[in-house]
């Protein structure tokens, strides 16, 4: 019971409560957006917007405005540019992504250089997050932003699935493909910039993707994948905060490491399950295509 005692001990401190709440909200909401990004094969977009967010943070330092808002503006603008590039020019998704990686980092470092008195150390705080120094107002922003993002994604799930799975079909069936694409990117931008101060750019993009790719090895439907990924994100984030408190290490990196470990472990498990399933199938096997040759009769 020693562990139990120390556990409650940690969460007597308000900063630990705040850390836990922010991590849980991000853990729950990020996969709700991430499932569509994985479906669209844009798993790295969260990271790309994270790099752009650095430029936003630096603009915040430079102008003295709250970095969260400058980041929000910069990432939303970047996602609009990215979507326009993708749909109206021959730039492919991964080229646009590459430009975001390079431009974002360079912009961030350049602008922080100009505002050198405000310190590059601050930039690191946004990269890896500082769950433990977040104030209640930041926790509230995360909770409200997270709830809005999750509700939007849950309500629009069928439409977003359609544009992410088969954009051409969605276009022919008359769905507002451009608007929905933009909405998805903007939601990603909001998720990244609202949660980065507390949990870090590294962590939020990992939480967009890791829970989804972990659970999709075992699920059969999109709906189940979405809900179980949200649950898995919650668990990974919660475990990470508790584990980091126990060892007194940064929560952001602990959460990501736990996520990666869980993914590797489940991937191994999935390989075994698939072998078992091949023997005991959950559904009817594809009906045998009729033999279109005549087997030679035995003499």
């Amino acid at each position, binding site marked *: 019971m020693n562990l139990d005692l120390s556990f409650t001990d940690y969460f007597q401190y308000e900063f630990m409560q705040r850390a836990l709440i922010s991590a849980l909200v991000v853990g729950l909401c990020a996969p709700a957006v991430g499932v569509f990004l994985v479906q669209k094969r844009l798993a790295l977009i969260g990271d790309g917007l994270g790099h752009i967010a650095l430029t936003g943070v630096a603009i915040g330092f430079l102008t003295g405005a709250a970095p969260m808002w400058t980041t929000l503006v910069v990432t939303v603008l970047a996602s609009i540019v990215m979507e326009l590039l993708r749909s109206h020019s021959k730039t492919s998704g991964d080229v646009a992504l590459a430009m975001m990686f390079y431009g974002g980092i360079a912009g961030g470092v350049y602008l922080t250089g100009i505002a050198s008195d405000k310190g590059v150390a601050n930039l690191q705080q946004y990269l890896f997050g500082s769950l433990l120094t977040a104030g209640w107002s930041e926790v509230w922003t995360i909770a409200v932003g997270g709830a809005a993002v999750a509700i939007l994604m849950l309500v629009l799930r069928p439409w977003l699935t359609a544009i992410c799975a088969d954009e*051409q079909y969605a276009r022919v069936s008359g769905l507002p493909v451009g608007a929905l694409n933009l909405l998805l990117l903007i939601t990603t931008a909001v998720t990244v910039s609202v949660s980065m101060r507390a949990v870090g750019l590294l962590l939020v993009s990992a939480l967009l993707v890791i829970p989804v790719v972990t659970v999709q090895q075992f699920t059969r439907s999109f709906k189940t994948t979405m809900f179980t990924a949200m649950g898995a994100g919650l668990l990974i984030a919660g475990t990470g905060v508790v584990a980091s408190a126990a060892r007194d290490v940064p929560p952001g990196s602990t959460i990501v490491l736990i996520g990666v470990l869980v993914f590797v472990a489940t991937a191994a498990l999935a390989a075994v399950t698939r072998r078992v399933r091949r023997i005991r199938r959950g559904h009817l096997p594809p009906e045998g295509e*009729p033999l279109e040759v005549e087997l030679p009769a035995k003499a």
Partner: protein
Amino acid sequence: MPVLNVRGATVSYGGRAVVRGADLAVEPGEAVALMGANGSGKSTLIKAVAGLVPLAGGTIELFGTPQKRFRDWKRVGYVPQRTGAASGVPSTAAEVVSQGRLAHRLLGMPPRRADRDAVARSLAEVGLADHAHCSVDTLSGGQQQRVLIARALATDPDLLIMDEPTVGVDAETQTALATVIADRIDAGCAVLLVTHELGPLTDRLDRAVVLADGRVVHDGAPPRPVGEHADPAHEHAHPHANGDTADDFWGGR
């Protein structure tokens, strides 16, 4: 009034005209095949009709409305050229087919009984009712193709556009699909079918339009197989039967 009226359509890719001044009309309840060799421009023309590639010249009217102003896309069922129904995140057959009902639903509203019924009905039509809750990536290639056809049928279309729906589908399934499509034609649905082979689906055709090098070279009675091709045992070998989306072996279109 034709459900589809294409006049002088020209489509070019990077300055090279792939479709040159093609005319194509489909009357209500009519079944028309768009045929031609690989690279003749038939898939490109169909993509232009679906609004996926822009026209360089000519006009397209759907249900009497110029395509640019046409908003009633739920009257059009579209089966894309085989890309496989599977994608990054697992989806069940029922989930993929229900995409065909989204145009009937208000954004953000849950499905109504009519939507759920249409999904169940079209899955049953293509013989996949038992597989509704199976992940599409565990289905065979032919079954995935049937899922895509069910998705188009779920729209309750007045015009069904199918781009090579039977590539990689075995003969028995082709016959079953032909029956499903024939039922829809009898119910008044117009069909535009892109194909480069004659098979069970082409038996029910009213008309065939043949493209060669981007131009219409025949518009009238569907061609009948002759010689060796008339032999029911004759088998074509298709370079992209394994799901390659390129129109010919060399990767061109």
